[in-house]
């Protein structure tokens, strides 16, 4: 009889794969986004099971609480009709090949997994402080300071890039009556 933690792991893994399949294969992007939120939540639970508490909370905070909100925003803003979505078209044959190839690859992995890989996870040497904020931050700032700073610079670059890409000068009042088609998107952008 497996330990309760193992049953929980397998249940979580099955649900994660199920929601992942739903994300990848639902026709409308809003449904994909919602299943993605659930996927991230379940992954966060998996991380707690693996003892990574800080990482689990960051997963919900950043991934499910900010990145997917960005997606949801853009989906709302663009407000597409079904014709524009590309839904309802026949799935091309290449995707079936890929799916079959994936399943084959997974089964191949099962076959070649060495016994060493199938041993249970080793016990942690310091389970109380593994994955906490303190130990993570000490490790980060002791060994990976440059990566940390570079990540900050990368975020700054991303902010600047998005500002440049998405910015559009507000059109003057006189020109808006002639440009009917772009004023609709302008109105949606102005409402946000």
């Amino acid at each position, binding site marked *: 009889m497996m330990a309760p933690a193992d049953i929980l792991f397998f249940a979580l893994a099955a649900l994660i794969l199920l929601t992942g399949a739903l994300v990848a294969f639902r026709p409308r992007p809003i449904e994909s986004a919602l299943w993605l*939120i659930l996927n991230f939540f379940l992954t966060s639970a998996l991380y707690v099971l693996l003892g990574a508490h800080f990482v689990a*909370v960051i997963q919900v905070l950043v991934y499910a*609480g900010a990145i997917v909100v960005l997606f949801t925003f853009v989906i*709302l803003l663009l407000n597409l009709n079904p014709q524009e979505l590309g839904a309802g078209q026949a799935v091309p044959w290449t995707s079936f090949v890929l799916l079959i190839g994936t399943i084959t690859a997974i089964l191949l992995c099962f076959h070649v997994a060495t016994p060493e890989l199938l041993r249970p996870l080793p016990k942690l040497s310091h389970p109380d402080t593994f994955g906490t904020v303190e130990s993570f931050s000490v490790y980060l700032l002791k060994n990976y300071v440059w990566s940390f700073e570079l990540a900050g610079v990368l975020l700054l670059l991303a902010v600047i890039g998005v500002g440049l890409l998405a910015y559009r000068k507000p059109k003057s009042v006189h020109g808006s009556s002639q440009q009917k088609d772009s004023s609709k998107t302008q109105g949606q952008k102005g409402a946000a």
Partner: protein
Amino acid sequence: MSDMAVMWLFLLGKILLFFGIVFGIVAPIMIWVERKVAGLVQDRIGPNRVGPFGLLQSLADGIKLLLKEPLLPREVNKPYYLLAPIISVIPAALSFAVIPFGPPTTLGGLFETPQRLQIASLNVGLLFVLAVTSLSVYSVVLAGWSSNNKYSVLGALRASAQMISYELASGLAVVSVILLSGSVDLVHIVDAQQKIWFIFPGILSFFVFLPAIFAETNRIPFDLPEAEAELVVGYHTEYSGIKFGLFFLSEYSIMTTVSAMAVLFFFGGWELLPGFTWAQAGIDIQNTLIGTVLATSWFALKVIVFLFLFVWVRWTLPRFRYDQLMGLGWKRLLPIAIFNIFIIAGVMAF
């Protein structure tokens, strides 16, 4: 009774007590307080017919909401329409799992070691609350989008943009609290305030945190997304009956959560006075039952003061225009919060 059974019973008791009090007592009383204070501020009496002083008005309102005909407007996207109120209650309820409502206690000798009065004693409690309250954006977005109503969509876009902008400001304000206390565990944060409450060194972060929590709960002065005169009711225009009741309930629950957070971070939680702890007053809050009850009631009193502040501000201040609101969040509060982190980090380093 065996040890394990006592532990499970204690957990069950905590869950029942917490949820019962918040969803069953605090929310209805808040509704009554809101309407009564509104009346008194506007120089009228407020509800006084149903029960003594109108106290049963919330009960009557709740019964009305439950018994209303469950309308489903025709063109709504049914699964998301029904899902949105449910999603709004989930973060509101989940965030209570880590809020400690009293000091670690042995409940008058019932336990050998002091047990925490938290449902789940996470060592990343603060981040958990931040993460879970950031999920409440989705209910707004889904409600607005599924309602098939242009006012709802506009209200939803505005509300969600406002909520995520002020999440940033509140998160950065809380970073200074983490710096001062050296931990993200909520009980450790309160314990670190035994010498001095964090309102004093972190006064600037409190001034950033307070508007941020008003904006996150969509309360006046930041409630343009729900503005009655301008957007009908915004993102919950098409909701009636118990669906609207759930939105309402979640709003008051999140108000309670962020009030509790403000008390825990800045006002010492259950500590008696800044610099004067319960131990110095001669009351042992950890080992005696009466001490624990006293500390817990003191904490509840502080939370009630904050809740009253929410209601008071609502009926006193006019609302912000939307561009003023976003300008405040991004151009003023965010730089102040970052600057504040520099100041506090600098002072702590030297």
